[in-house]
């Protein structure tokens, strides 16, 4: 390597030159900082106060599938207290109370609790009304350190369904603050506490910005720091839901006569939730702003438990709506076919030393599977269940995923209870449980508990040729730069063949179309509606009324599951309610077609 030795001389010079250029850059910068700007930096250093103040990012909007705004922001006045100039907090708060007649017993405690963080001003109250504000401004001199600023508040549709679905925001609790990502949250931030606001808090809340302020030793803000640009906040992302506002509002009004229950309307072909209702509900707006202690007490101690989202958290025996599972499993196992007749129903059924009754006292006579579903004959399904056996039944229930959460994008979904063989082993001891448990299970009673959403999702799979889609509420995410749509995702494939599912669909259509069918009250002139009723025994009182309907039978576009707590017979109350919702949906669809 002769050339190498030769090059070393030249290369070492180039290397040194490059190093010196960089070094000169560093020296110039040091000169600039330490000589040119020394007085500026020394001043800051002496006061030693650069205070980063957060710039709040506007929260993302929520709209329905047609772009109608459901949740928006509106400006409101927030009253704050700046710890600096206040000498006696309790005195100031007492003064404030005397002007406004607010309940301030907890306020002073709250302020003292957050004192460790008290570099920042503390919010006393959001959404202060204008007249109160005027009073306070007049008495400005007597209230040192108290000032107001305009902030954005959340506005929800004023209705009883908003609480469960949309949730609400409120100030972050100290506990949440400790757990959260320090980069994105700070004291006084609004965070989603329930529903979609909680589930998509990450998307909605955006990114806070920061202003750098120069602050004097006494805490007085002198102005913005000159060599530090403020970091602008990134607004939250807007989200579009799969909910149809018209349908949702209509469902609520249709549900008006009943005290408690739930309704889920889904598109079986995509898993999109079109409407979702839980009664009694609560209005999100009560949490933003002025919720008095009394009102909270009333809601929290209500025996109807308005905070329970029955659609995803309420666990109910599904009753006869689950007979389709028994029928499908038996068809799949080829225990019966379409034309198989079992022993006739005389209104009761003996097994061992026990009598199991059919809901119809007089009995249904001799039937095949379609008739049995149409009339919801219990005796037929008792026999079918025994033929099928407990482990086969449990195997199918498990494959249908009935004991798992659907994974809908709402927080705190409950999972249902479907007994498995292990469950019985645990409960009654190894092999000690009795065989006739399956008799109860086959008509949807016994140790089965499902949420209305689970039932709706299961039916979506049944009417959609066995493909169950992930139920979801998020349709689109729209940020400043771009919009992302979320397509359907297959949740699971039900373990049933198309032939089996066709038979079930036929039976469910007949159950509505046949004047003697249990679901006849869901019939709509000119449209083929299918459905299955359910009347679930309730140990605490009157039976729960169920109905799951879908339409049109040929190519289902909607599945509606209705559950009315203590409603009595499913065919009498739940079916007409589902009918109304389906009708509304079909009208909207035909309108859309006409517009095209």
């Amino acid at each position, binding site marked *: 390597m002769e050339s*190498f030795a030769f090059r*070393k001389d030249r*290369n070492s010079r180039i290397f040194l030159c490059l190093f010196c250029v960089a070094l000169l850059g560093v020296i110039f910068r*040091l000169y600039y900082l330490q*000589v040119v700007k*020394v007085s500026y930096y020394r001043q800051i250093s002496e006061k*030693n106060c650069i205070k980063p103040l957060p710039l709040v990012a506007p929260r993302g909007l929520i709209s329905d599938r047609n772009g109608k705004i459901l949740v928006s922001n509106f400006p409101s006045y927030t009253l704050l207290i700046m710890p600096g100039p206040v000498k006696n907090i309790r005195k100031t708060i007492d003064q404030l109370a005397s002007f406004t007649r607010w309940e301030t017993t907890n306020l002073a405690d709250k302020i003292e609790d957050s004192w460790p963080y008290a570099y920042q001003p503390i919010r006393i109250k959001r959404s202060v009304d204008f007249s109160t504000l005027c009073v306070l401004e007049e008495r400005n001199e007597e209230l040192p350190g108290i000032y107001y600023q305009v902030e954005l508040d959340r506005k929800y549709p004023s209705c009883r369904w908003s609480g469960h679905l949309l949730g609400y925001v409120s100030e972050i609790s100290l506990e949440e603050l400790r757990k959260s990502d320090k980069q994105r949250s700070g004291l006084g931030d609004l965070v989603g506490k329930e529903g979609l606001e909680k589930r998509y808090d990450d998307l909605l809340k955006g*990114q806070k910005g920061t202003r750098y302020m120069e602050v004097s030793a006494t805490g007085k803000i002198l102005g913005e720091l000159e060599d530090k640009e403020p970091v602008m906040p*990134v607004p939250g*992302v807007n989200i579009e839901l799969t909910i149809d506002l018209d349908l949702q509002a209509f469902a609520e009004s249709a549900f008006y006569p009943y005290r408690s229950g739930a309704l889920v309307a889904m598109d079986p072909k995509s898993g999109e939730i079109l409407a979702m209702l839980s009664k009694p509900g609560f209005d999100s707006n009560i949490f933003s702003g002025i919720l008095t202690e009394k009102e909270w007490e009333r809601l929290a101690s209500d025996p109807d438990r308005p905070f329970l989202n029955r659609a995803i958290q309420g666990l109910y025996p599904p009753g006869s709506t689950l007979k389709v599972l028994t029928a499908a499993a038996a068809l799949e196992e080829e225990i019966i076919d379409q034309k198989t007749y079992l022993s006739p129903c005389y209104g009761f059924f003996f097994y061992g030393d026990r009598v199991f009754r059919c809901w119809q006292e007089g009995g249904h006579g001799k039937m095949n599977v379609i008739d049995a579903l149409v009339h919801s004959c219990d005796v037929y399904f008792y026999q079918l269940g025994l033929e099928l056996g407990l482990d086969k039944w449990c195997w199918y229930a498990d494959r249908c995923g009935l004991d798992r959460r659907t994974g809908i994008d709402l927080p705190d979904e409950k999972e249902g209870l479907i007994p498995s063989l292990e469950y019985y082993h645990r409960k009654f001891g190894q092999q000690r449980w009795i065989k006739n448990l399956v008799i109860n299970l086959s008509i949807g009673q016994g140790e089965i508990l499902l949420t209305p959403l689970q039932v709706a999702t299961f039916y979506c799979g049944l009417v959609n040729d066995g493909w169950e889609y992930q139920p979801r509420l998020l349709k689109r995410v729209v940020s400043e730069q771009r919009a992302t749509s979320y397509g359907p995702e297959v949740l699971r494939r039900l373990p049933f063949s198309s032939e089996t599912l066709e038979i079930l669909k036929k039976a469910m259509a007949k159950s509505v179309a046949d004047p003697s069918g249990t679901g006849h009250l869901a019939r709509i002139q000119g449209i083929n509606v299918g459905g299955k009723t359910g009347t679930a025994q309730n140990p605490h009182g009157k039976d729960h009324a169920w109905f799951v309907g879908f339409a049109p039978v040929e190519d289902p576009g909607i599945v509606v599951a209705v559950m009315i707590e203590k409603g009595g017979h499913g065919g009498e109350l739940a079916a007409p309610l589902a009918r109304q919702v389906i009708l509304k949906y079909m009208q909207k669809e035909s309108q859309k077609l006409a517009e095209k």
Partner: protein
Amino acid sequence: MRFHGKEFELSLFLVALVLSLIGIVLIFSSKYYSSNPSEHNLYLKQMLWLFFGLTAAAGIFFVPVRFHEAMSWVYYIPAVILLALLIVVGTKGQFGSARWFRLGWINFQPSEFAKLAFIFAFARYLSYTRRSIYSFKWLAATVLLVSLPAVLIVRQPDLGSALVFFAVLLSMLFWAGVPLLFLVILVSPVLSLVCGFHWLAWASFFLGFLLILYYHRPRFGFGLFMIVFNLAVGAVTQLFWDRLHGYQQLRIRTFLDPGIDPQGAGYQILQSKVAVGSGGILGRGFLEGSQTRLDFLPLQHTDFIFTVAGEEFGLIGALVILALFTFLVVKGILIAKKARNTFASFTALGITTVFAFQMLVNIGMVIGIMPVTGLPLPFLSYGGSSMLLSWMCIGLLLAISYKWYEY
């Protein structure tokens, strides 16, 4: 003919020693008023590290350089394996990155030692290879050699340390006779990636790139390949970046740049600028820095140690440190030039690059002209692995210069 005599670079040794002692003084000052009493004797620990470092340097001094030449692969492969192991069993650090093995009370940072192992391996590769530097195989082997440790370190994530590898790679290639312009062409995809976030920046980059191609005139196939590659990288970056939401972009930035502070806006840099700037020409005096005293900077004794020097000893103190480093770098290059053994020459240059690069990037970060990367300042920052490595490097330089005449 010149006399081939052994030369012990006493001045090099002394300068490194002075730098280490300054570091101990600065660490003492930075933690003197610390609210955490266990930190008060960090400077004692650093003294212990200095002692270990000196021992290691002495040990290495007596090992013939040819031994390292023979063993270079034996160093390189375990170093890479250790880095890979770190992903599995590493200890999480402050910003959620796994950079250390915890061995009793010692935190062992393999990436520091991987630097030296890479220098050895690459020096040997360069001094043995006879291929043309433009051949594809040669290029591929080089890329592989550097990527193995660098990618593992980026994954930790520790972008700063990974950049050191690339700096060493480029400077050693340059030393091997690769023209500067060709090096620019080699790194152009990276520049394309960085500039790709804004179309105007990218357009000007690409124009400059074409100009360089025109002047340098590489082989047609290679030139075409680089043009297409750069275009592709630019386009992909543009598309990819725009498709992300704001918060996703922020996450990527946080990943690449784990030092950004809770407010996400360089609060730390601001504080360090105030500290250095308020030092003035003469400084506030030992133990008098108010920024230092008030614990504004969490990393003051490690990555931000230079702020203490800037605040308490002012421009004068800062210049003294810069001068000492410059002396080290100049000496290192002279040794690299002097050494007759090709391997030794490359090794000396690689070591010098590590010193120069880390010093410039670290001080540049503190005074706000470089992005925040977690690179320590050699000899001064608190930390055992860094101190040990720096002194091992000094031992090597001394050994190389001592027997400079050996082929």
